[in-house]
């Protein structure tokens, strides 16, 4: 029973991280109808920037903030240079370009920062908390993870629901032509969507890094789990990303705990195959009508 509780707690924590990356995928999907397979590598890169700054004895939270800002800039630059010229091209082209970005960034990180494993200090203690007399697999750092992702989610909700920028972003995603006629700078909005997605990814990278000894491919699995989560939630729904992230996190935690961690990716594949066979539009979005 205590194994089950610990696996559940672990699954929720991981699920929140998947949800953060999935939220980034959702931002980009809503803005440009592209799945950004470079999302994980971009986060990896900014995490390496943060750890390099920490090596130079910069304040922890300054390095943390620097990584988020670096993500913001990186997302905007990548959208402008790589994604914008692909508009109107067949749907396969951006898929291939973001896959190119994926290994390009991994190769660059390996070249610049070295391929050896690094460690990232956690912001808070990673020792399990004690409730009564039982120690559970839930630490101060896990609380921080939950809080950070909840803040990210609430911020997203506030942005979309309560600000005029959010309204413009929704308009640009929903009907770009009409939005443009009504004075929305659609191009800039799309760039902003990519930038915010990269921030969400960078945050996830900073939250994952202390829990693993990391190398340039440490976000690969996080990316595919987040993709599973995003597809489960329907790829265009932020709420779907959160629920999908939690479901994926819990399911994979049980698979890893009861069957062995090397079967976790296979579990994600199974979830994805079932979801895509039974309900390809995901749990939280409507099927698109086919147009002839």
């Amino acid at each position, binding site marked *: 029973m205590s194994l089950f509780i610990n696996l559940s707690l672990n699954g929720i924590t991981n699920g929140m991280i998947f949800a953060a990356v999935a939220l980034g995928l959702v931002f980009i999907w809503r803005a440009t109808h592209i799945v950004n397979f470079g999302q994980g590598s971009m986060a990896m890169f900014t995490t390496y920037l943060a750890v390099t700054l920490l090596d130079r004895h910069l304040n922890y939270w300054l390095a943390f903030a620097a990584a988020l800002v670096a993500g913001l800039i990186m997302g905007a630059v990548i959208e402008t240079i790589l994604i914008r010229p692909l508009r109107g*091209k067949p749907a396969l082209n951006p898929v291939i*370009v973001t896959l190119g970005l994926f290994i390009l960034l991994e190769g660059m990180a*390996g070249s610049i920062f070295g391929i050896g494993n690094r460690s990232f200090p956690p912001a808070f203690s990673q020792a399990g908390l004690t409730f009564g007399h039982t120690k559970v697999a839930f630490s101060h750092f896990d609380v921080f993870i939950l809080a950070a992702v909840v803040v990210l989610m609430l911020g997203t909700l506030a942005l979309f629901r309560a600000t005029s920028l959010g309204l413009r972003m929704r308009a640009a995603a929903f009907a770009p032509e009409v939005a443009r006629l009504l004075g929305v700078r659609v191009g800039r909005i799309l760039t902003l969507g990519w930038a915010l997605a990269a921030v969400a990814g960078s945050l996830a990278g900073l939250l994952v890094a202390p829990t693993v000894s990391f190398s340039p*491919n440490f976000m*690969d699995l996080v990316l595919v789990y987040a993709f599973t989560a995003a597809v489960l939630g329907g790829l265009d729904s932020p709420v779907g990303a959160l629920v999908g992230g939690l479901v994926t996190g819990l399911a994979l935690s049980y698979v890893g705990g009861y069957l062995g961690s090397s079967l976790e990716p296979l579990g994600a594949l199974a979830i994805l195959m079932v979801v895509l066979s039974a309900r390809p539009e995901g749990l939280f979005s409507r099927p698109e009508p*086919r147009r002839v």
Partner: protein
Amino acid sequence: MPSPDGRTPTRLSGVPWLRWLRLPRQPLLRHLLFGAVAAVGFYLLTSSLSAFNNFRVGEIALYVIALAGLSLLTGTNGQISLGQGAFMAVGAYTLGVLTTHTHWPMAVDVLAAIVLSGALGVVVGIPATRLKGPYLAGMTLILALALPRIADKYTAFFGGDQGLTVNAPTPPGTIDPQRWLTWIQLAGAIIVLILLANLTRSRFGRSFRAVRDDEIAAGLAGIHVARTKVLAFTVAASCAGLAGAFLGLSIGVVNTGEFSLTLSIYLLAGMVLGGAGTLVGPWWGAIVIVFMPGWSNSIANSFSLGSAVAANLSLVIFGLVLIVVMMAVPMGIQGGVSWLVGRALSLVPGIGQPRGSRGPPDIATTPDITTGGG
């Protein structure tokens, strides 16, 4: 533009010296002819090369097989797959397990590798029929990450880190073993290319292209869209299975390190670089895949960039290849070459190629080059 006898001209009949050669009109005969010419050429080539260079020619041949399957899947049928490396792993492990646990002839093991990876292609291809590009890419990406871990989990059966040992086939008579293996691999590549060239010229090939261009229209025209997509996926997976088995024979050992996600992405890059939807493009892609590690080492050394860069330069270059080719020349090397040849010929008056300012074709509309062979 119909040719004088009312037939739609193929690319071949547009090239004057080939028309002058009076090649057979029957596609199978023509492809067999190309195959025979290629076989003679390769015989002369391999006889003059050292054992190490023959090893590399054999590796090129096996990557050609994997890339040709991927090229058919992506270029002709419009499906993207990052699972090609995973299917290669299935082929290689099938061969490894069978040679370790049974004493069947090598040909049976290789056949089993093709069949088993093809069968897995059906399993993965069925949910894939409902998926559009990015979803399929994501699903096959997970496949590429997940499958090798099964071998890590069941180490007793799959040999764990050590992997499974595979012995190269024994040559008849006094033939050099490496040369014999290279011949087998080249023969495999030629046979696969002839079969794929015929497939793309057949009813199935037309269905593949119809489904790629417009699924709904293809369905309304009576094509069974799902079945067509599964067939393309199965063919691509079988090709990868054969390539994987050949890779096992080449390096003599099968372990998971060979079949990382990187392999799948390199294959995608090689296919895109050569030109999706062509059967000549895979040769360009395979040459780049086989020689890139050596090239990036010598580049890193000549600029004294250090070992970290040397180890990662291939990744950087393949990443750039994927990005730059997609943005600048989406039809790849082969598409670019045939476009240039076509433009050059159209400048000469009185030669078959239609005039006009036709731009280079895009990845999803690349016409198939069905000249096969080498």
